[in-house]
């Protein structure tokens, strides 16, 4: 009865997941099938998607060893609006007047504060091993994660396409931008076991419920946050008033370790000599503090219910095979945080730049010859640094629910999920992943899928490769067919060399 309650509870959570999104770990198998995998990804990759799946067999041998055991990368975001790009920036149009307004609306919508971003994430699994037993499984996997993103608001885009046009910037227009980088390494130790076995339950037989957990130790590589907010006003001339350009700005940069120290040194020196060049200090940055900036812990949890529904007739599906296995899974991934606190500091600057032609005692030529340097030295790099406690970055935590149906060489899968934060490609938008795999000749998986929601517009995925019982070598990719609403996405994954025993 308890088992039934658990299943019903899991099912009840499904609708809630529809309104949220995902930032899942990509293997070549999951990416090829739409980016899900909660109910079918086995082996050491399961550590990062659903540790309970360490118990899933999937016609694979019990021991999997990955050498360069998987690389996944994806870029995308709302700023990568391929449709708008193709409509306006590839057709020879002159971006002015109404065309310009329409283009910016296509990219950013109507609101001047609307922000669009581009994100990129790369995960590399250098090594992984999983050992599946009859009632419990173990795994050890390492992963390096690089998340970065940048965003601008519509005002910044208007500055780029209008210039200093008093018609557009006659009243203050926010010109904002930002960016971040978060990278860290993980050492994940997975464990799963069968916790329940039910022989018959309503429509299913031979039901096994697996539970798994994968705690992980996190090592910070680098992190930077940059936020730049400003208002720009270009006053039109009026009579003897020649107008002015006013840029009211402030920005912050959070950095750590050597980079932070160099920024502090630069700031101190710049107070003494405004001609100090920030480039001279950044040149000294050599990543020598790699791996020492942060520590953290994370946890991935999952549960999978695997059942035999061969006795049920399912139209079309039965065409591919009468033996049918249904799995229903749920997982919480990337729960935890990493705290960047080594030599943490925040650079903060702000001020108002007014260009009104008041050149003071300078000559006209000298003033404008040195204006750019003056702005750079006296405003934009004239920041104060303040030591901070550091920044605790939440991992791109997600809730995932998935189901998969295997009928012969066909596997269909569906996943729902949502993110708890916007770290990396994580999105609060819910995502729905649909995927299919057909194993041609039994060892050539043809994979297709789609992802709806998440950090970009709906994406379509495909994958192919060799997947033997003892060896896997597969690739997958993902693209978007209409980026107009939520931007584009481009992803790729490579299984690496996976050897199974």
């Amino acid at each position, binding site marked *: 009865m308890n088992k039934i309650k658990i299943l019903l509870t899991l099912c009840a959570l499904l609708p809630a997941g529809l309104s949220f999104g995902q930032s899942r770990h990509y293997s070549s198998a999951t990416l090829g099938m739409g980016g899900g995998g909660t109910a079918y990804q086995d082996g050491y990759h399961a550590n990062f998607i659903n540790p309970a799946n360490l118990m899933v067999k999937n016609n694979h041998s019990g021991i999997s060893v990955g050498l360069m055991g998987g690389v996944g990368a994806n870029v995308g975001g709302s700023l990568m609006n*391929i*449709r708008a*790009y*193709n409509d*306006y*920036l*590839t*057709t*020879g*149009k*002159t*971006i*002015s007047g109404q065309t*310009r307004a329409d283009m910016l609306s296509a990219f950013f919508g109507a609101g001047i504060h609307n922000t669009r971003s581009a994100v990129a994430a790369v995960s590399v699994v250098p090594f992984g091993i999983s050992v599946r037993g009859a009632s419990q499984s173990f795994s050890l996997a390492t992963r390096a994660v690089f998340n970065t993103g940048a965003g601008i608001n519509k005002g910044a885009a208007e500055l780029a*396409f*209008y*210039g*200093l*046009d*008093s*018609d557009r910037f006659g009243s203050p227009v926010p010109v904002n931008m930002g960016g971040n980088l978060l990278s860290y390494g993980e050492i994940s130790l997975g464990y799963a076991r069968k916790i329940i076995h039910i022989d018959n339950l309503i429509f299913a037989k031979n039901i096994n419920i697996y539970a798994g957990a994968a705690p992980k130790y996190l090592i910070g590589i680098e992190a930077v946050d940059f936020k730049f907010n400003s208002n720009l006003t*270009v006053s*039109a*001339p009026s009579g*003897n008033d*020649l*107008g*002015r*350009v006013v840029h009211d700005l402030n920005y912050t940069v959070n950095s750590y370790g050597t980079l932070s120290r160099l920024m502090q040194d630069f700031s101190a020196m710049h107070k003494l000599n405004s001609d100090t060049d920030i480039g001279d200090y950044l040149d000294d940055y050599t990543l020598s503090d790699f791996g020492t900036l942060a520590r953290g812990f994370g946890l991935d949890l999952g549960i999978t219910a695997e059942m035999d529904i061969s006795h049920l007739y399912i139209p079309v599906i039965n*065409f*591919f095979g009468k033996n049918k296995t249904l799995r229903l899974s749920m997982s919480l991934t990337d729960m935890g945080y990493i705290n960047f606190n080594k030599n943490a500091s925040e650079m903060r600057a702000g001020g108002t730049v007014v*260009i*009104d*032609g*008041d*050149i003071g*005692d300078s*000559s*006209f030529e000298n003033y*404008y010859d040195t204006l750019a340097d003056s702005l750079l030295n006296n405003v934009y790099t004239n920041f104060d640094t303040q030591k901070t406690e550091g920044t605790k970055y939440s991992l791109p935590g997600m809730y995932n629910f998935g189901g998969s149906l295997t009928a012969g*060489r*066909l596997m269909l899968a569906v996943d729902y999920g949502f993110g708890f934060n916007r770290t990396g490609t994580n999105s609060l938008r819910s995502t729905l992943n649909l995927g*299919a795999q*057909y194993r*041609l000749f039994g060892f050539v998986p*043809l994979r*297709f899928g*789609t992802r709806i929601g998440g950090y970009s517009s709906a994406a*379509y995925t*495909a994958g192919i490769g060799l997947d033997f019982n003892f060896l896997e070598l597969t690739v997958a990719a993902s*693209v*978007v*067919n*209409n*980026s107009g609403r939520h931007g*584009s996405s481009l992803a790729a994954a490579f299984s690496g060399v996976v050897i199974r025993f």
Partner: protein
Amino acid sequence: MLRIKKTAGICIAGVLMLSGCEIPGKPDFTASHKIEAPLLLNKEYQFLGSRNALIDSTKSDFESIFVVDQDNHIKLAVNEDFDFGNFDHALPLVQADPAAIVNEIGEINIGSFSSGVNNLGAAAYTDLSGMPAGTFLPAGTPVSGGQSPAPVNVDIGANTDFFVSAVLKGGGVSLSILNDSGLSLDRAEFTLKSGTQPMGTENLFNLAHGDDAEAVFQFSEGEVLEDLNVDVSIFWSAQTLHADAGALVIKSAQGEQLRAREVTAALEAQTFTTSGTSAVSDAEFEFGPEAEHFVQLKAGYMVIDPILNSIDLDMDTVKISFPGLRAAPYTAADSLVIEYAGNEKVVGNGYSQYKETDLSGYRIYARNNALTYNVYAVSENTQQAGSYNQIRSVKEDQFIQTSVQFGGLEIKEAAGYLKPKNIVLNDDEYEDGVVDVFNDYEADITELSGIKTLSEQLEGLDFADPELSFHYNSNLGYTATIYGVFLGISSGGREVYLSGSGKDGTYETLPGDPVAGLHARGAQIGHENIIKFEIPKAAAGGSESGILTFDESNSNVNEFLNNLPGKIRFVGKAVVNENGNSGMISDPINFDSEISLNVPLTLTAEHAVFKDTTDQDLGDFPSKEKGDANRITEGEIQIVYTNGIPLGFDIQLSFIDENNSTVTTIPAAADEPVNLRASDVSSVNSFAETPAAGEMIIALNNEQLEQLYKTRRIVLQAILKSGKPAGSQSLVPVKLRADDQVKLGVRAKITIETDINNK
């Protein structure tokens, strides 16, 4: 078969799904940016000042050419050294004639006749009294009175070793007598004889025993003296011998101013002198009778040929002195004396060495152009020579002789009467007395750098009351009348001669003035284009400073300076000491002069043109014509001004390509000029009064902007218009002040289009 269908179905479904995916195309669009920015906010530019002034008076071109008076009124005040050429030709040439010097020894003085031991000979008492020889009469022996029965001859010639013979000119011989006879004599008679020829008789009276006495014999010219002997007779009264009977002794013979025409003897030193003069040429310079007139030599030498000595006597000393040749400090004691003595003595019957004397720094004092010399010679004293070489034969007409010559005399300084001299002030290339103002070798060219810069940029201004002055400082101690050609040439090549014609006559050159040889391009320049002025003489040894001022009353200086002569060419002639007065001249003849332009910036400008050309390569200026991705499709500069300068400007910019063709002009010929209006001008003091405010817009259309990349130079041309008093239509001179200001505000409005990957 069934499996194939399954696979195909899966693949077709996958391909259909992926075929709808978006692929980003190649970028292809044109970005259009408009940039509006104020560039200059009401910046005030002072008309004249240092940094940020319209005219930066600290720039090297303009440094020190502007001065400001108490009212801040600006003047162009250019001071440049001006080369009036070279007055060195005014220095006279001086020459001195050679002088032949002959110095005869003249009459010969004879002194001592013997090296003497106080006894040339004696007459014994016994011989004098006629007693037999050998008679001894002791002291106390009574002697009766008596006289010599016959004169006793004493041959003194045997003992006068210094004398052989002489042909006398006068004087006498003194015999020194000692009475050692033992008697007191009433009288003793001495007859001096030359051989057998009596030369004279002398009596000595009352000659007591032991007395010394002198018997002097006088001779006439022509008498010959040789083989000397003396006849002696005595007369005495009765007495007792005062001592044993002895003799009358002739102790010595000595010439008493005894002078001979010729002589053979051992001679004492003979001194003889002579004097003469050397004529100094008076062709260009006269000393006159004044003792203080002189010529100081910068260079020159005097040569004394070897002195020929025809006398059989060495000349222990020969001095040739020139009282009129003096070294500093030029007193009589500083006269030049050339001496031959010691090792340089002139030996008898021989000659001396040649001698040359550097006369640099010497002064010649030569009254009436005669230079005096004196010769002083002293012969050896042969009496002090060895006995084998004591006797010489000398005649009074024997001499020493030489000659003196002067050469290379160059004047450093001269005081006296300079003969009037007409000189060319410039380097005369062909030495023909003709100098051409357009011959760069001959003409002295003065560039007025500040004016040159202005001249390159401005023309058509009409300055009021300009002045041109020459400040001079001269050490020429004679008046000089200068006939000068001053040709001012503007940067545009316009030539204007400075002329005194048609004015008050102060500086007017008249027909007949000595201006022949002043040419322009090979032709004689007319007197009306030549300025005449006089430079007063400087005080002796000093200098004379003065100012020659050319203004509207005495010259055409308005026309000359309104031409803004960046270059002045000068050729000229001078007549020095036209009146033949005494004065002083020194080498070098310093004639330092400075030209001063004093041009108050009080001017009228109706169509004056300011023009400035700057190299400006706009090759990087974007244009579709050269396939640039970027181009400026609209450009506009708005200038808001408040002009407190009493000058307005109609501005035109011309963009010139590498072939000197105009690419475009702003504004176009058909458009209204870009005008910056002048301020109103006070009718009281002509200074700027009420500033003019307005706006200028310099706009370029797309077509002009497309052509700008061809530009290599930009010519700014501004037509200057002086302001007028409020409500007035008449043009009046306006005065520019240093602190007149123009306030400018500038805004740029530019539209830039950028092609991104356009095909």
